């Protein structure tokens, strides 16, 4: 008997299911379900999913994540989160956990909490975010973001008032606690900065080991004019975890969106970031680093849409592929006809530590304006044997020398994270990953 192929290809959604609720929100959800049904579950035949095969995920029989009994701070996997002593919001299986969160230190002008609560009290003021063109486009072109929208019910809402400059980072923790069997969650995040607001947001996605947790996350980011958000995320899901995430960032005039994603965990990760440069002089720097080892698949897919003149964007991703780790980078820059004076750069670099490692890279420039400066580049190489010998010849053992060189390789991506505490926290997780390598090597 052969395995049945994924049928008409809308797993995770019963044909009869209708969106919950009425009014504009019900309509948004229904559009999400319709968008998913129309596009179908991603297969390698979808151009955007050529290198990342979700068919095994689509075959999972999934349940809604279990309601988690009260956890204490000691239950948090500290070694898989960003080590930061700052105000934090904790979500366990998509539900806001007040006892684990620490909002006492939240500065004035910052409102943060669960989407569920806002949907109960004042959903109307989220309408402009959820109905904005970028969100609608995502529903039409990203099947799983559409599915997320169809089930939109809980997650994070973070709003920073105009003119408020938040000192120091805030930390958002998303923890997946596995159920008896595989689970699927659709957390939604809504982040809105008023005109001229500034903040650094550190986000840790992590999971406890056990049955696979599939996270299908969508995060909306809306930056008002002159706002500046540094959005730093650690994706460190449990070894069996699957993370499919889409960030949809709309960046206003002269505003700046700095995204950094460090991906270390999870069996399969698709980190999709879409940025719409929506007002003149907007900027986006979409950077990241990742490290994959045995059996891991990490996909970063970036789309920067230059819709207005004189906007600037850059993408820098660095990947370390060990053992049979596999990386994918798809980076697209779209320069629309009106977007004169665009500056758009893109670079992906991969370090392949073993012959079994692999990376697929697809850069794409679509340019309809004529006064633009755009470039893309990609490199893939092995560890520099000369450098390795140099370090060893000074008495540094091979494992340590390799770790130094891996960290050095990632360095120029990590240094783009402006906040020192957050940068150090990321570096610490990278070092843990390296120690994991040493252990794995010893155990073999």
């Amino acid at each position: 008997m052969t395995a049945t192929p994924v049928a008409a290809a809308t797993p995770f959604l019963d044909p009869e299911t209708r969106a919950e609720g009425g009014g504009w929100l019900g309509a948004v959800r229904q559009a999400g379900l319709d968008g998913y049904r129309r596009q179908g579950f991603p297969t390698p035949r979808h151009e955007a999913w050529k290198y990342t095969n979700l068919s095994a995920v689509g075959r999972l029989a999934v349940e809604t994540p279990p309601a988690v009994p009260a956890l204490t701070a000691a239950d948090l996997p500290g070694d898989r989160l960003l080590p930061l002593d700052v105000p934090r919001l904790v979500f366990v299986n998509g539900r806001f956990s007040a006892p684990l969160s620490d909002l006492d230190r939240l500065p004035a002008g910052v409102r943060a909490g669960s989407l569920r609560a806002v949907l109960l009290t004042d959903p109307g003021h989220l309408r402009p975010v959820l109905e904005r063109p970028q969100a609608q486009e995502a529903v039409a072109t990203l099947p799983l973001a559409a599915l997320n929208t169809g089930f939109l019910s809980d997650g994070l809402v973070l709003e920073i008032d105009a003119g408020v400059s938040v000192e120091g980072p805030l930390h958002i923790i998303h923890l997946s606690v596995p159920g008896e069997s595989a689970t699927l969650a659709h957390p939604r995040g809504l982040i809105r900065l008023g005109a001229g607001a500034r903040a650094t947001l550190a986000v840790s996605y992590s999971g406890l080991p056990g049955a696979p947790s599939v996270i299908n996350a969508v995060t909306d980011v809306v930056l008002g004019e002159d706002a500046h958000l540094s959005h730093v995320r650690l994706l460190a899901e449990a070894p069996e975890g699957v993370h499919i995430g889409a960030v949809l960032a709309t960046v206003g005039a002269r505003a700046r969106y700095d995204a950094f994603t460090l991906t270390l965990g999870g069996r399969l990760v698709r980190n999709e970031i879409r940025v719409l440069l929506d007002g003149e002089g907007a900027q986006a720097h979409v950077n990241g680093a990742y490290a994959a080892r045995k059996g891991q698949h990490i996909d970063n897919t970036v789309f920067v849409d230059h819709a207005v003149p004189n906007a600037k964007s850059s993408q820098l991703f660095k990947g370390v592929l060990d053992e049979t780790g596999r990386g994918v980078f798809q980076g697209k820059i779209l320069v629309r006809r009106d977007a004169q004076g665009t500056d758009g750069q893109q670079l992906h670099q991969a370090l392949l530590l073993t012959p079994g490692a692999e990376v697929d890279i697809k850069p794409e420039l679509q340019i309809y304006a004529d006064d633009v400066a755009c470039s893309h580049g990609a490199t893939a190489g092995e560890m520099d044997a000369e450098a390795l010998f140099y370090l060893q010849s000074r008495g540094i053992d091979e494992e340590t020398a390799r770790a130094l060189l891996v960290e050095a390789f990632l360095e120029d991506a990590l240094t783009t994270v402006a906040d020192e505490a957050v940068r150090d926290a990321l570096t610490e997780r990278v070092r843990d990953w390296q120690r994991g390598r040493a252990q794995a090597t010893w155990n073999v």
Partner: protein
Amino acid sequence: MALLEIINLHAQVEDKPILKGLSLTVNPGEVHAIMGPNGAGKSTLSNLITGRPGYEQTEGTVRFKGQDLSAMAPEERARAGIFLCFQYPVEIPGVGFTTFLRTALNARRKARGESEIDAAAFLTRLKAATKALGIPDAMLKRPLNVGFSGGEKKRAEVLQMAMLEPDLMILDEMDSGLDIDALRIAAEGVNALRSPTRSVLCITHYQRLLDYIEPDFVHVLADGRIVRSGGKELARELEEKGYADFVSQAA
């Protein structure tokens, strides 16, 4: 006991025999110069002593402090007291010079059962060594060798040597690419490290380095063997006559 004892060393690179029966003994405190034409195998010798991958010993023995080197990893050789001043130090972006130095020093201390050096003591030593070599502080903050000029690279090598305190200092063409001032500074740095227990293997094509680092013995390496040994006057003779005699003699 000899510090370094090489007996009938044969070595090859990519199946090509390069060293063909080289013997050399270096006692503690001695300075030996190895001179020879390009392609004679001088760098191969230094690579073999330090354990660079790809250089294969096919015959003979190399002992350091009585210990057979052939089974030792490059880092073990370094911790035992061997240091190679690279002819072309490798640029390593992303690795800070200071971090690198502390890591190397601690690796060596750990191997000797000593505790890690404390940060203050390390910095004090580093400052002193840096000052002696006229190395600007800014250089210490840069990534290892990245953007260093030729002279800075060599000074940085000597600085590492001063910090790591090896027993055998191998200088591979230390004079290459240096103007006379840079050469003098680097050579003075080496001389400052000389001691009755510390030896130098000074590999050079030209005699001029030996004006600064005065050898006790000079050996001519041609076609993979030491074809002549003598005192420092041999270096002058080579300077005048060149290597032509030896090359034909070896062929």
